[in-house]
């Protein structure tokens, strides 16, 4: 009988266990269903036992995660750095472009203001070339005879006198700068009204010659065009006296002039295509 019972149990042990365990589980659901917040002693015990392990694993995981994040962050930072460098380069380029525009705008405004001051017709021109030799001081402008630019016309800038047109072709012209050996302009010292002849010295300076010895010339005196000869309007600034050479004998004195125009920075100039016989205000 006992053997038969054991045999039945062996045969049905799995369904038997299933019923027992599943019923217990269902009872567990049923018993807690209306009392979710209750924490049984066994639950509390499990939680307490598991807590330190969870804490340890969580800390380890977080540490690993932080390490991983830092690594990923570094990789991202590298990428971000490259992208930012590109952006900075682009913005710098843009900034330069805008600054250039602002400078150009300011320059053009000055030119416009200047052109209103000069009695006559002024043609704005762009410098497109500079003399490649070291002997001569000439520039090439982008307007020629087709635009009304002819030989001998004065070329000026808001800072002062630049030179005159040496040669003109239909679409461009060569301008002899006042600093060239071959340039000579009749000039007056603005303060003392001493007259003289301004010639280029082949470098970036000019020389005042044939100024009467008895006239008072001082360092820093402004030299302007006299208007004689008809090429340049009267009163255009040539430059400032930087050195005076006055010998103890002779009729004249000489002086060195620093041109008011910075030829290295010239970009736009005016050609005076028509002059009126009046002073510049």
């Amino acid at each position, binding site marked *: 009988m006992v053997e038969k019972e054991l045999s039945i149990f062996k045969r049905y*042990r*799995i369904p038997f*266990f*299933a019923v027992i*365990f*599943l019923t*217990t*589980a*269902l*009872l*567990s*659901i*049923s*018993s*807690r*269903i209306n009392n*979710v917040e209750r924490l049984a002693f066994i*639950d509390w015990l*499990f*939680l307490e036992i*598991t807590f330190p*392990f*969870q804490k340890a*694993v*969580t800390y380890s*995981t*977080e540490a690993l*995660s932080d390490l991983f994040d830092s690594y990923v962050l570094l990789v991202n930072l590298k990428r971000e750095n490259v992208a930012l460098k590109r952006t900075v380069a682009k913005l710098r380029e843009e900034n330069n472009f805008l600054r250039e525009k602002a400078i150009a705008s300011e320059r053009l405004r000055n030119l416009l203001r200047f052109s209103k001051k000069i009695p006559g017709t002024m043609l704005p021109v762009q410098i497109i070339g500079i003399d490649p030799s070291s002997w001569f001081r000439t520039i090439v402008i982008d307007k020629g005879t087709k635009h009304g630019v002819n030989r001998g016309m004065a070329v000026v800038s808001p800072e002062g006198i630049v030179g005159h047109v040496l040669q003109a072709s239909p679409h461009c012209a060569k301008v002899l700068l006042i600093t060239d050996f071959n340039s000579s302009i009749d000039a007056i010292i603005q303060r003392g009204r001493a007259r003289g002849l301004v010639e280029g010295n082949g470098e970036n300076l000019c020389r005042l010659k044939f100024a009467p010895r008895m006239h008072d010339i001082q360092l820093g005196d402004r030299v302007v065009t006299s208007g004689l000869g008809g090429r340049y309007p009267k009163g255009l600034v040539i430059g400032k006296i930087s050195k005076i050479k006055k010998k103890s004998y002779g009729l004249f004195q000489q002086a060195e002039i620093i041109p008011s125009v910075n030829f290295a920075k010239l970009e736009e100039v005016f050609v005076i295509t028509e002059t009126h016989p009046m002073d510049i205000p």
Partner: protein
Amino acid sequence: MKKNLSLMGLIFLSLVVQTTVLAELPHQLAKPDLLLILIVYFGLYSSPLAGAMLAFLSGYMMDIFSGSIFGIHTFSKTAIFFLTILIKDRFYVETHLFQAGTIFSLSIIEGFIIISILGLVSPIENLLPSFFMFIIPKSLITGLVGPFFIALIRYVSLLPQGEPIK
């Protein structure tokens, strides 16, 4: 006894990993149910009584850490254990592909069990979308991880291959 203690330790370890490392993963990622894999393992390689006790214990421990209705995992995990025994008696379960398929199917069934119990005992409406949103991805990942996890347990010889727990 020693083996049973080792398996309890394994349950404990899996639970800790499940509630810490895997819980740290982003919400969007499906996470494998390590305890389910363990229960399938018990079902395949352990004796019915010891396995049922371990499955019950696993579910119980999961319930302790879970915020849901208490006993829901105890019931589902125990049910999965007995279903595994049923499968084991009828199919050859040693291939990885079969194990993956079994784990995937059992995970789906567990999802059904949980949804059914929730539907019966709590007034939560429209549980079906969660089946597609959570249970299928979770079952897929559990099915994929399952054979490797089982192989790992067998590799570390916690339970020699095919040897039932006495």
